[in-house]
């Protein structure tokens, strides 16, 4: 049986929810107020017979009172609370951050995984597991879901926003989202779950992770890394991904709140300023239980939902392992629309895009793009090696009304990033080498990062030794000759191509491990971590000049990072390119001009020049007398006058001159005439066909051992 919370705090909350005080309950139960007070403060517990009475007083069943795993439904029901418009009539409500981005599931993947990595429970050493579920619902399932989210309460708000759609980008997005749901009768739910993470702990309003995500969207944009926890820009992308601006949350906490851990549920809606009925509303709305402590008990707060509610909200979690589930309602992926359809036909291995769209194209494409982003940005966090478990495990699955559309796909970084994962694993396992002599090897170099003194003082605080790994790469690893730079959270921060390498350098991939990623023994790892973290913009996609870097160190501090890049490039070059022998005479340019490059030969010069008929097809067989019988097709250029051509049949040889065979027979079949072994093409024809047979007495070797060569030579031959 589930262990609920202590009776005292539970009862206190139920009274509050029901709008009763201790005296009123005491009256109903015909007890003294002191007896009720003793229960609430935990000095005593009611007798079992009294439990039935209490249940009746709270309007609930005896089981709920016994287990106390959920709140009674007694008080005010779960509802949407819309933040009222400003007194001064300002219309600037709404989350600028959530509206600033185009919906892009790849950005979402990046931000959500990064948050999960930051919120990973580290004590048990296990990875944080992140699972993406794309779930398209239609028909009854959709109806039931709309009921669960109290759509009828929301509809007037959406209508108000739609009316203003013409004036606002956000309005247009929301309008399209609502229309999509009704006209096509479908809704895409994108769920992001993490397990073995801290969950949304903390009070509903005070500093803490819960409030940072649910309440203070704007504040934490100031990359407030203290009180706001690690949820920075990331959370805004959750709302940005929803065409309806709606995200529902169910969190299992690692640290109990109000004595509970499971099914802390709340929903948040992001809408622009709107006027509905008599009221005006500015920005967000929350789905929750009205808070009796708030003015007029109108503000809603998270509630401890029962299993049934969670199920109906599509928020059921797999286990009681701590972590959070975000349900993005009406998920869309504007960025995928930019990709041309041609790309998709090539990319989709199932080849489904070549067929009639079965209506799953959107969600399949979303699935594919999520996988892509996870492979690209989190391969390092997902890589294990030696005794080290990965920091992160991810998977993506796609459903439609509960039926599998794309099977759950565990992201395997070695599949998509074989070279880089090999490099990192070799580092973990201690199998790196000094020099690269064979494919598959991973070379290691340390590269110095000189950390400046804080506070603008001149000088170096210490030298961090970053770890550079270089290994050969194949086609699968994407853009060749790149360095992926990471720090402790193993997310690829920076991708840069090594410049200035000589011609002919073999394809390679390099990984730069900085900060705590460089290993426990690396000097000044924590300091480097802090320094580089400060050098990351909110997008976490590069290192360079930032406000924080300037404030905490100096305005020249970013030069230290530029120097690191120079050192990295030099180290890579030393590993992959041969040092040039000195003493070359006569200048590099002249030498280059005097080289016959073997690769140049492949730049195909057409066998025939422009305006000449060209052989376009050849079919051949050996006839009964041992003669070669051929049918050849000629492509004719669009020119006024077609030159005559002579078909010549030769035998290929190992070396030397190719023996020429005689024709026994040459017949024009289409688009041409044959005259004394010379082809005359019909004016205006685009294609000609002729046939022929060789004179077997001209064969220098028996025919079965020959390779036939057919050529068209301009003119009448010799």
């Amino acid at each position, binding site marked *: 049986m589930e262990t609920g919370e202590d009776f005292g705090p539970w009862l206190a909350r139920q009274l509050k929810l029901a709008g009763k005080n201790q005296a009123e309950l005491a009256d109903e139960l015909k007890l003294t107020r002191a007896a009720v007070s003793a229960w609430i403060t935990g000095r005593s517990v009611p007798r079992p017979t009294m439990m039935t009475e209490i249940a009746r007083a709270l309007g609930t069943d005896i089981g709920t009172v016994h287990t106390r795993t959920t709140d009674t439904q007694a008080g005010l029901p779960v509802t949407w609370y819309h933040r009222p418009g400003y007194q001064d009539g300002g219309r600037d409500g709404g989350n600028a951050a959530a509206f600033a981005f185009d919906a892009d599931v790849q950005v979402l993947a990046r931000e959500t995984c990064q948050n999960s990595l930051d919120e990973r429970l580290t004590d048990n050493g296990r990875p944080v597991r992140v699972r993406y579920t794309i779930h398209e619902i239609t028909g009854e399932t959709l109806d039931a879901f709309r009921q669960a989210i109290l759509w009828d309460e929301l509809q007037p708000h959406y209508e108000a926003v739609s009316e203003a759609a013409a004036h606002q980008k956000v309005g247009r997005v929301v309008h399209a989202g609502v229309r999509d749901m009704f006209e096509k009768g479908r809704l895409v739910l994108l769920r992001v779950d993490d397990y073995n993470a801290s969950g949304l702990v903390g009070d509903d309003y005070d500093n803490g992770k819960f409030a940072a995500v649910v309440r203070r969207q704007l504040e934490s944009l100031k990359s407030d890394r203290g009180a706001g926890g690690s949820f920075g820009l990331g959370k805004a992308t959750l709302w940005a991904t929803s065409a309806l601006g709606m995200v529902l949350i169910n969190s299992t906490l690692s640290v109990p709140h109000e004595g509970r851990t499971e099914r802390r549920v709340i929903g948040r809606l992001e809408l622009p300023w709107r006027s509905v009925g008599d009221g005006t509303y500015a920005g967000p709305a929350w789905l929750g239980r009205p808070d009796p402590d708030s003015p007029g008990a109108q503000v809603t707060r998270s509630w401890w939902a029962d299993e049934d509610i969670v199920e109906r909200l599509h928020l059921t979690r797999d286990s009681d392992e701590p972590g959070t589930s975000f349900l993005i309602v009406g998920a869309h992926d504007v960025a995928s629309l930019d990709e041309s359809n041609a790309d998709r036909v090539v990319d989709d291995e199932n080849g489904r895009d070549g067929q009639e769209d079965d209506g799953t194209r959107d969600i399949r494409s979303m699935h594919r793009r999520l996988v892509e982003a996870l492979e690209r940005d989190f391969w390092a966090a997902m890589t294990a090696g030696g005794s080290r478990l990965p920091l992160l495990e991810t998977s993506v699955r796609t459903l439609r009304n509960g039926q599998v559309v794309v099977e759950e796909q565990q992201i395997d970084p070695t599949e998509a990033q074989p070279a880089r994962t090999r490099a990192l694993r070799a580092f973990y396992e201690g199998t790196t080498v000094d020099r690269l002599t064979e494919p598959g090897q991973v070379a290691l170099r340390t590269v110095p990062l000189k950390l400046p003194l804080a506070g603008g003082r001149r000088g170096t605080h210490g030298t961090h030794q970053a770890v550079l790994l270089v290994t050969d790469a194949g086609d699968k690893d994407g853009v060749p000759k790149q360095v992926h730079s990471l720090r402790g959270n193993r997310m690829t921060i920076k991708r840069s191509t090594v410049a200035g390498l000589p011609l002919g350098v073999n394809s390679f991939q390099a990984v730069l491990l900085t900060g705590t990623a460089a290993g426990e023994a690396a000097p000044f790892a924590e300091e480097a971590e802090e320094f580089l973290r400060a050098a990351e913009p909110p997008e976490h996609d590069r290192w360079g000049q930032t406000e924080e870097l300037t404030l905490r160190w100096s305005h020249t501090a970013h030069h230290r990072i530029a120097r690191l890049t120079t050192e990295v490039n030099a180290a890579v070059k030393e590993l992959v390119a*041969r040092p040039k022998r000195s003493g070359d005479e006569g200048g590099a340019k002249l030498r280059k001009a005097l080289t016959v490059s073997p690769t140049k030969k492949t730049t195909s010069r057409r066998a025939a020049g422009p305006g000449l008929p060209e052989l376009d097809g050849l079919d051949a067989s050996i006839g009964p007398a041992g003669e070669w019988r051929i049918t050849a097709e000629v492509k004719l250029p669009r020119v006024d006058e077609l030159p005559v051509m002579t078909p010549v049949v030769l035998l290929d040889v190992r070396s030397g001159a190719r023996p020429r065979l005689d024709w026994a027979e040459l017949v024009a079949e289409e688009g041409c005439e044959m005259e004394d072994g010379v082809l005359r093409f019909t004016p205006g024809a685009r294609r000609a066909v002729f046939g022929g047979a060789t004179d077997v007495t001209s064969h220098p070797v028996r025919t079965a051992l020959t390779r036939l060569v*057919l050529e068209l030579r301009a003119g009448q031959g010799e």
Partner: protein
Amino acid sequence: MKFYPYKRLNRPIALRVTSASLKLPDNTRDLLDTSAWSVPQRTVALGVAQHDDWTSARIGLSATLPPGAVADDAPWTGLKVLVTLADGETNVRTSVELRQDAPGSKEWSGFVEVNRDDHVGRAFLSAQAVATVDDVAGRSVAETDEDWTVDVTADEPLGGLRLDVKQVGFAKSSREWLHAYADAPWIVDASGRVPAVLVNTDVEGFADLLDAESGGMENKVHELLVTQMSTDVWTAVFHSAVGDLETESDGTPVFPTDWRGEVLREMLPDVAPGVHVEEALRRVHRRRTGDAGWVELQTRIHYAAVRRAGVSRALSQALRALQQSNRGDHA
């Protein structure tokens, strides 16, 4: 177009170098860095500054057969994969059989020994899949489409034929025959193993200009000079290549196997456009040895050299630079 009278694979074998080591006079082996070979250039450079005295090199290879080669229903039996090292200058041809990595695998690997005494410059590696097809043994069913080059002297894996550039003071050279050219800034010697450009260091400042890597107008002059020189060189080597052709008994010219062949294959498409290189060679040879047409062909040879040397680009850049500097003067 070509046609084989038996079933084979259309796609080529992919051949890769996986390691290279040098055997030194004391019988130790030195494993070379992977930078000794270049996959994009398909070249192995065995010349390493610190080991000029190596006796042989072992090159590790792996080959991937095209799809269908090892299928159960393949129309052949007894499949083997051979790698051949061939050097036309020293008539060396060594074949080694690769081993299949696992039964049924399309990956095969092995190594080839390159004997230092057997090569002067470049040797070529190719792979062939050989099998018995329709009871005929030893048929080639697939091969590499492009050779790997093994250069025993180059220190950079750049492949390709590189003409020699030497700086000499002509007037006082120990090569007395150069004295006759003392007033020329450069001459082309196409008689050696590979053609060489001899740069006369007696012409003051000339060698410096050639070595210069500075920008600006000087750079443009440098570029123009380089194109001028290489036009000369390409014209000279083309003449030299076409002037020394071997012929079959019926007078058909044969492609030389040394640098001459490479130069001809490179330039003939511009000299005689629109025909197969063999046919182009025949035409050029006929004009050179016949009664007429050789003089007329000079324009085309010059055009091929100009194209090869990239004259148009260098010239237009120089002109643009000149215009810009003129505008700068007026401003």
